[in-house]
């Protein structure tokens, strides 16, 4: 039985020789709907995987969203899923669903480049923990997605800072798909994979999600094991899902969350239950930010607040006044220089793509230990203050970014300039807080904009519930880029 409410014709249905409906797999339907069709036998995991591989080869390459396709592993996993689903051995909602991994996740026998030209042949013997968990959930790995070289740790100032060239945005190929999880964002937006895994040290899930008009969930630090993922900053790196909707992100998070002996920071703390009906939610928004915004970013944010007010109380608050960006910068610089020290010292970083990345990591080598430790001490103070701030609320809502996607050839520092403005990014990442970014409209140039909902530690189920409730009342997450 097909549980979808949509007619087959809207799913690209054809009739087979027996007069039965068959469906051309449409990967932009999302995980939940594809899963229903898979379990109903209306589409096959093998067809789905092949569709993904074909699309990634044809379109994903032109978006510079792909480093490596993984057809052998994909077909092996898809055939296994097909056998299991047919025999009723269901593994869960991701069973038979294709996905793509940011190319900083180790995959046994498949190159893992970290987006860096000098590491194009790097291989590992084992899979990253996240790859293992998605395999166990029955998901089908189809690609390693392009990313900014070394996850942006060298301080890139342009989109063309990747082994595969500048990440192109599916909404306008002359604009950037964001960083550092560029390919993950573009591939999901273009409907080439239903979901991808990205990583975030500071903005690398939220930025490409917002710029590409998709949903991205950055979990609490420690929620998802990072074993097998490139380390840029041990105390700030997180892995999380990027998908079309909050529902889909939740399905993925359920599969990848949990403690792992291989990552001592991962925590054995069960995810809560979604609380979609638990209205009204209690939201805060930073005081004065709305007034400081201009143009369609402000209009879209105010419209989002209007929608959210149907499901939540919204109170303006003052955020703690601490040097969030300074602390985050120094921590990443010091930890990045240490994590990548071998590549700096042996000259590997001299061969990175962006000229500024060839010297960007050196400054971290000269940072005094006391300055790094000071940043960590300020972080703890900040964590406590944010804990107090969030105690009365289910989340803090703000625009994810104050700009649309930059031109593909832009200097990012010049483009961002005064567009940077206030942001939850630095404090959220510094304090390890979860956030979810969801599309909320289009800007002056017709490109996606987004809002994020930042929560207290270990409250992914709450912020996701709010996002699901918002998406039940809007259709921004269903909009698709031009073919």
């Amino acid at each position, binding site marked *: 039985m097909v549980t979808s409410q949509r007619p087959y014709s809207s799913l690209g249905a054809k009739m087979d020789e027996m007069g039965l409906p068959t469906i051309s797999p449409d990967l932009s339907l999302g995980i939940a709907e594809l899963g229903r069709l898979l379990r109903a036998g209306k589409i096959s995991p093998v067809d789905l995987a092949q569709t993904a591989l074909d699309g990634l080869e044809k379109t994903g390459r032109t978006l510079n969203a792909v480093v490596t396709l993984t057809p052998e592993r994909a077909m092996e996993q898809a055939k296994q899923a097909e056998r299991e689903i047919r025999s009723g051995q269901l593994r869960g909602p991701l069973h038979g669903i294709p996905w793509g991994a940011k190319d900083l996740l180790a995959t046994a026998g498949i190159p893992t480049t970290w987006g860096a030209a000098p590491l194009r042949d790097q291989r590992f013997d084992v899979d990253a923990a996240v790859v293992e968990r998605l395999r166990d959930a029955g998901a089908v790995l189809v690609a390693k997605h392009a990313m900014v070289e070394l996850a942006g740790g060298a301080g890139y100032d342009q989109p063309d800072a990747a082994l595969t060239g500048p990440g192109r945005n599916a909404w306008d190929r002359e604009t950037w798909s964001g960083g550092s999880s560029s390919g993950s964002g573009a591939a999901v937006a273009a409907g080439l994979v239903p979901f991808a895994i990205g990583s975030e040290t500071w903005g690398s899930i939220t930025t490409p999600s917002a710029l590409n008009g998709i949903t991205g969930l950055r979990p609490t630090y420690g929620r998802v094991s990072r074993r097998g993922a490139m380390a840029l900053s041990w105390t700030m790196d997180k892995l999380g899902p990027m998908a079309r909707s909050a529902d889909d992100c939740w399905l993925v998070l359920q599969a990848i969350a949990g403690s792992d002996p291989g990552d001592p920071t991962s925590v054995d703390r069960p995810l809560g239950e979604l609380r979609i009906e638990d209205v009204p939610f209690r939201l805060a928004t930073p005081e004065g930010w709305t007034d400081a915004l201009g143009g369609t970013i402000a209009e879209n944010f105010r419209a989002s607040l209007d929608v959210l007010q149907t499901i939540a109380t919204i109170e303006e608050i003052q955020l703690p006044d601490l040097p969030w960006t300074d602390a985050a910068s*120094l921590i990443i610089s010091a930890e990045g220089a240490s994590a990548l020290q071998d590549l700096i010292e042996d000259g590997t970083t001299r061969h990175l793509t962006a000229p500024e990345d060839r010297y960007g990591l050196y*400054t971290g080598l000269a940072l005094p230990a006391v300055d790094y430790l000071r940043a960590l*001490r300020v972080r703890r103070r900040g964590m406590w203050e944010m804990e107090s701030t969030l105690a009365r609320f289910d989340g803090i809502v703000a625009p994810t970014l104050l700009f649309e996607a930059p031109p593909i050839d832009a200097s990012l520092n010049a483009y961002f300039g005064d567009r940077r403005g206030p942001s939850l990014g630095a404090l959220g990442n510094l304090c390890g807080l979860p956030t979810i970014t969801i599309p909320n409209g289009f800007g002056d140039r017709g490109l996606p904009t987004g809002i994020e909902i930042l929560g207290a530690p270990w409250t992914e189920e709450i912020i996701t519930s709010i996002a699901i409730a918002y998406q039940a009342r809007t259709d921004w997450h269903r909009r698709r880029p031009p073919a």
Partner: protein
Amino acid sequence: VNEEQALVEKKAAGRQQTSETDDVVAGRLAALKGQFPDRLSPQEWDKVRDGVRDHREKAAKLRAVPLTNGDEPATIFVVGRQDG
């Protein structure tokens, strides 16, 4: 007169601070150049100097946050091997 004098003293203090920062930045840059003598071009070293200076300025902002002796760093330390 007092205001003028305070302004003069403030400017003098600012110059002294800038001079100290220049010395510290130059010292750190020299250490890096000593470690990697032939690695970067003069223009690239200039960019590294900007980065070192930026770090110094950020650290100064962090030092302005009042902390007590008991304010520990939020860092990772887990006793014993976790992976058996």
